[in-house]
């Protein structure tokens, strides 16, 4: 709400429902609109409709609901609709362990939609970052006209913690005017202004391949290639602005942990403990997961001998690390519905240094 969110549509699902309950109470008081939809498909649909009607819009969900939203999220990417989706990841697959922690949606957020899409996914590790990165997600969504994911996990989602709800940030306002081409840009990675319904722009919004004005171009190869190309470049050309990592104790490290989400907090504790014993270990913490911080990981190559990637899934990010790091890589996947313990990571790292 600090970021200017004016619309929430959702469907209750453990362990994300607390967000929905909070929005149900607070959003209408602040002049926004809240609605409980009949399912997650309807939720993302209503979010997209509201976004085109001019509202900054969001929803929150977890694994099964995230799966149901995939088609709608593809629509949001293709029609360049700003929206924010918070996924409080739980232990999957399927219904899995609804109340337990996991982080198995990393690949789904990028590859769950059919076709080739580029999206932005952020990974908070604290209550403070649930606040700060939600604001950042709204700003990026509005600036780039795309869905932005906050891939939190149950451990962060249910953490109680001292946090400051400050107002030291800029709020991105959507560029609303139109030159008649709300779906085209002269720049190969450009973001066109987005008029809203009711502005008199006679908008043609469609999930089919379309030209700059929105007319369907479903049989023109060039039109499809150009549109998909621009939607990808829109994200990839801005990767330096989007990618956000933290480096801890990496300067003289021989072994680096690459971690994200709640696991990264345990990893930092493990690194500090081992540093206390004179072991040269460090942490590269990924606060952006998509676009993947390839350069930042590749920069470890030649600097550290080995990389350790602990995850609450079986190597979803380790596979991405493998693509850019040629040294020794140890992937540690834990999917038992529990967070990876600090002592577990200490023991694993001790075997590597």
């Amino acid at each position, binding site marked *: 709400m600090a970021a200017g969110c004016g619309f929430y549509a959702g469907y209750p699902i453990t362990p994300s429902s607390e967000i929905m309950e909070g929005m149900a109470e607070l959003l209408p008081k602040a002049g926004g609109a809240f609605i409980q939809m009949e399912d997650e498909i309807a939720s993302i649909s209503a979010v997209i409709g509201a976004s085109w009607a001019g509202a900054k819009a969001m929803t929150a969900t977890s694994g099964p609901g995230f799966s149901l939203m995939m088609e709608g999220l593809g629509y949001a990417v293709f029609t360049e609709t700003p929206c924010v989706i918070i996924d409080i990841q739980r232990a999957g697959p399927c219904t899995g362990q609804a109340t337990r922690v996991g982080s198995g949606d990393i690949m789904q957020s990028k590859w769950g939609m059919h076709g080739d899409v580029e999206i932005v996914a952020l990974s908070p590790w604290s209550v403070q970052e649930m606040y700060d990165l939600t604001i950042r997600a709204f700003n990026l969504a509005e600036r780039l006209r795309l869905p932005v994911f906050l891939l939190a996990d149950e451990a962060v989602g249910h953490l109680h913690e001292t946090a400051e709800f400050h107002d030291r940030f800029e709020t991105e306002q959507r560029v609303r005017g139109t030159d008649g081409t709300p779906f085209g840009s002269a720049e190969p990675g450009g973001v066109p202004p987005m008029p809203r319904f009711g502005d008199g722009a006679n908008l043609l919004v469609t999930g089919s391949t379309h030209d700059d004005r929105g007319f369907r171009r479903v049989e023109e190869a060039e039109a499809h290639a150009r549109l998909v190309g621009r939607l990808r470049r829109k994200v990839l050309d801005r990767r330096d602005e989007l990618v956000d990592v933290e480096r801890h104790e990496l300067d003289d490290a021989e072994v680096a942990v690459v971690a994200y989400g709640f696991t990264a907090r345990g990893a930092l504790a493990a690194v500090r403990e081992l540093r206390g014993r004179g072991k040269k270990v460090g942490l590269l913490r990924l606060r952006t997961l998509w676009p993947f911080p390839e350069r930042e990981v590749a920069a470890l190559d030649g600097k550290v001998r080995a990389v350790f990637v602990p995850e609450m899934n079986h190597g979803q990010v380790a596979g991405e690390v493998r693509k850019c790091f040629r040294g020794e890589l140890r992937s540690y996947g834990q999917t038992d519905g529990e967070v990876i313990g*600090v002592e577990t990571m200490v023991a694993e790292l001790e075997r590597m240094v």
Partner: protein
Amino acid sequence: MLTRIRFGGLGGQGIVMAGSLLGEAATLAGLHAAGSNSYGAAARGTACRSDVVLSDVRIAYPHVSTADVLAVMSQAALDKYLPGLVPGGVVFADDFSLQRTPEGKFAFHAVPATHTAVREFGSRQGANIVLLGVVLGATGAVGRAAVEEAIRHVVRARFHETNLRALALGFELGRPLAAGGRS
């Protein structure tokens, strides 16, 4: 200063409330606090826990993997969480449901939390706050005024009086235990 406190008991005993009040009070007292509770079916009738980490600097790792202080309201919780206590840690156990006194490298205090609540209020409600008062009276982790303010923030108004009284009784029971050792 880093203190990791774990409350354990059964769903319905107010374990999560004790943890929430402590976290809120610590924040009001200017400390950093992090808390996490058992979540899901376990929170409704069976064993449950509430973990709180207190620190005067930003908290790096917010979960309690090993606790400095363990405060329990059931024998099952004592048995379950005792292995997760640091050597030299402190245990406070409500004597109402205590069946066995454990042995080990820790300070152990059996405290009459439920008995006090029943005597003062005619019901077990409030025993969790008595226990919270004992823990804080003995450890000094957070001052009483901050907890009182937290009660006024978190607890519904009609329970304020009972809760504040339970807290005061707890502090009285806890203060003599500050030196540590066995009781």
